[in-house]
């Protein structure tokens, strides 16, 4: 077969493959693009309480600037994000190190360590709601048994954000640990052997070798958790619905209520698109960081 004929055959094969995969590609792109484009369009619409719709231009976005609830929601979102992410990364790395070194740990114990993130967040939220009930819950019973004062947990404007962050960290720290454990298992043993020969202590080995080598993995875990944490919804919705007052009213909860309880779909779309932009920004920043720490 001549070169020209071979090229023709290859082109034909490529064309056939493209034609065969086109429906799936078009379907997938449409499934992603349609909701996004529709939400962008909705963001330029105004809906009255009765559902009447009219073109609003940038009014929904200018309303954001003067809306106290938006800025408060943004603050709550960021506070929850930072607190939860720090807790999950610190304890996730610690748990991964424990699981990595405790090689004799039975499989069932390992499974128990990582089981919380297999639980649906709604179930986790319900469970913690019962545990943290200030009157009937086990948490205050334990505190009081130890001679400590009871807490109002989710009902306290001061403690609600740390409490929600703790619940989320209980659920997702094992997920971070699993990712970091994978990273730990892929580290080159030769580096550790060299450190051992040089007489490096365990702490120095962790500080100077393990942590720098693990950084790309940790950043990957941070990216994955960032996307979820900035969209924080289910646990708050189940446990506090944004309260007490508006102390745990994240942007996502606020947008949901504006859209589905007050029927202002246009403004809710503007809120959600702003949140999407924030999530994108965070992911891009972490991607750059990952590039910087890659080895």
């Amino acid at each position, binding site marked *: 077969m001549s070169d020209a004929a071979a090229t023709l055959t290859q082109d034909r094969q490529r064309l056939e493959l493209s034609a065969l995969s086109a429906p799936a590609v078009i379907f997938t792109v449409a499934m992603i693009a349609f909701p996004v484009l529709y939400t962008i369009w909705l963001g330029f619409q105004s809906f009255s309480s*009765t559902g009447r719709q009219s073109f609003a231009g940038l009014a929904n976005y200018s309303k954001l600037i003067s809306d106290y609830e938006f800025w408060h929601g943004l603050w709550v979102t960021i506070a929850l994000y930072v607190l939860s992410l720090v807790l999950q990364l610190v304890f996730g790395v610690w748990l991964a190190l424990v699981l990595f070194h405790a090689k004799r740990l039975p499989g069932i114990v390992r499974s128990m360590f990582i089981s919380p993130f297999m639980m649906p967040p709604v179930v986790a939220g319900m469970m913690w709601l019962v545990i943290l009930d200030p009157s009937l819950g086990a948490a205050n019973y334990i505190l009081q048994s130890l001679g400590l004062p009871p807490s109002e947990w989710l009902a306290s404007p001061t403690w609600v954000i740390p409490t929600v962050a703790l619940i989320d960290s209980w659920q997702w720290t094992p997920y971070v640990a699993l990712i970091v454990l994978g990273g730990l298992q892929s580290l080159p043993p030769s580096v550790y052997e060299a450190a051992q020969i040089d007489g490096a202590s365990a702490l120095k080995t962790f500080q100077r070798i393990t942590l720098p080598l693990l950084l790309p993995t940790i950043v990957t875990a941070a990216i994955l958790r960032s996307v979820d944490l900035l969209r924080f919804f289910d646990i708050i919705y189940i446990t506090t619905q944004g309260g007490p007052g508006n102390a745990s009213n994240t942007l996502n909860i606020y947008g949901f209520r504006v859209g589905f309880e007050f029927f202002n779909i246009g403004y809710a779309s503007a809120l959600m698109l702003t949140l999407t932009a924030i999530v994108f920004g965070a992911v891009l920043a972490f991607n750059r960081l990952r590039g910087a720490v890659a080895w």
Partner: protein
Amino acid sequence: MNARMFAARVALPVVAAVAVSAQARAADFEWKKFQGKTVTFLANNNPVALALVTYKADFEKLTGMTLKVDGYQEQQMRQRLVTVMNARSDEVDVFMTLPSREGEQFAAAGWYADLSAMSKNEVATEYDVAGLSQALLKAGTFNGKLTSMPMNIEGPILYYRTDILKRCGVEKPATIKDVEAAAQKIKACDPAITPFVSRGLKPAIAYTFSNMLHNIGGSYMANGKSNLCSAKGKETLDTYSRLLRDYGPPGVVNYSFQQISALYRSGRVAMSFESSNELRTVLDGGERLKDTGLAPFPAGEAGQVPTAIGWGMAVSAHSKQPSPAWYFVQWATSPEIQKRMALQGIAPPRPAVANDPEYRKWIDAEPVRKEWQAALDVLATKGSSEVGYPIVANPESREFIGQAVQDLILKQKSVDQACADADKALDALIAQK
């Protein structure tokens, strides 16, 4: 013509003709007219719907139709409804609605089918539209259109522990002031018991708060403006929040009906304002059956103006089969089904069912059920269905009422500041068209 002749020649034939005509009308009503159709029912998984769907097979047998039940928790049900209605989809034929909450809004949005004609022309004789609570039918009528048929009647009532009150030397509270005095005594008598609880979760507060506001003599609006900073409005804000702050359980700002019923059932609270609908949950397990007393919501300066609401069944304006949907609504709100639901503890919105011998026998079996029925009778006769502001954006208005109360429970604002902030936000909401 003597009396016997009159009876034989005129009265008896007339009575017979009326009876035959009624029978003919009943016979004319063909329950199997839409055999083979499928009706989709969007339900809230509350005790009312759960009781109703236990008779699903009976409906299918009677009509030959298939009933598809799409059940969710209340907020998820509304979320689904908003999505379906905004898309003008016909996938829901019948849905549950709270006219006191979303009636104005849904009616203005055109989501309800008009049931006025169907409820007159397409009814079985035994249906008896006039036998339904007129107050609830009125609450479900907007701009002259009947939008839903009542499924139950409910409202906040006082649940109290007879044993604790007796032990602490407290009489059954008859007024709101009595409740506070009783709570004070119980707190001193038994510190392990929570003296009082009511709804403290922001969106849930309006349900019990409205009853207190009306009993004290306040109103949500005056001259088209929000009225929470009126003397009566401030008194209600202060009293409601003080009761919860000083005598309520820790964390009461997250309490809605689930938490209140759980706390009461566990035996750790002496008095509570909660929905009459919660009786079944509160008595579940039987532990509270013998030591619970029930009474209408205690009176204020204006006496008793109880909140009486009911879930309704509406036909979607986008349904492509409103008549089969109406058949389901008619069956579900018929005297027979409402009687069967009443025997499961769902308060009937029909006075005739409340007087049914079988139902009375069930009521008379336990003293607490008698008190429950007595409280329901007060709801049925004196009830007001105003919960939150009587405006299209009623659900949003409840947020601001709840916020003001929570600010006071959490001591974040003074009464003057909390009511002023709420009035400002509510005036803006009232101004929205």
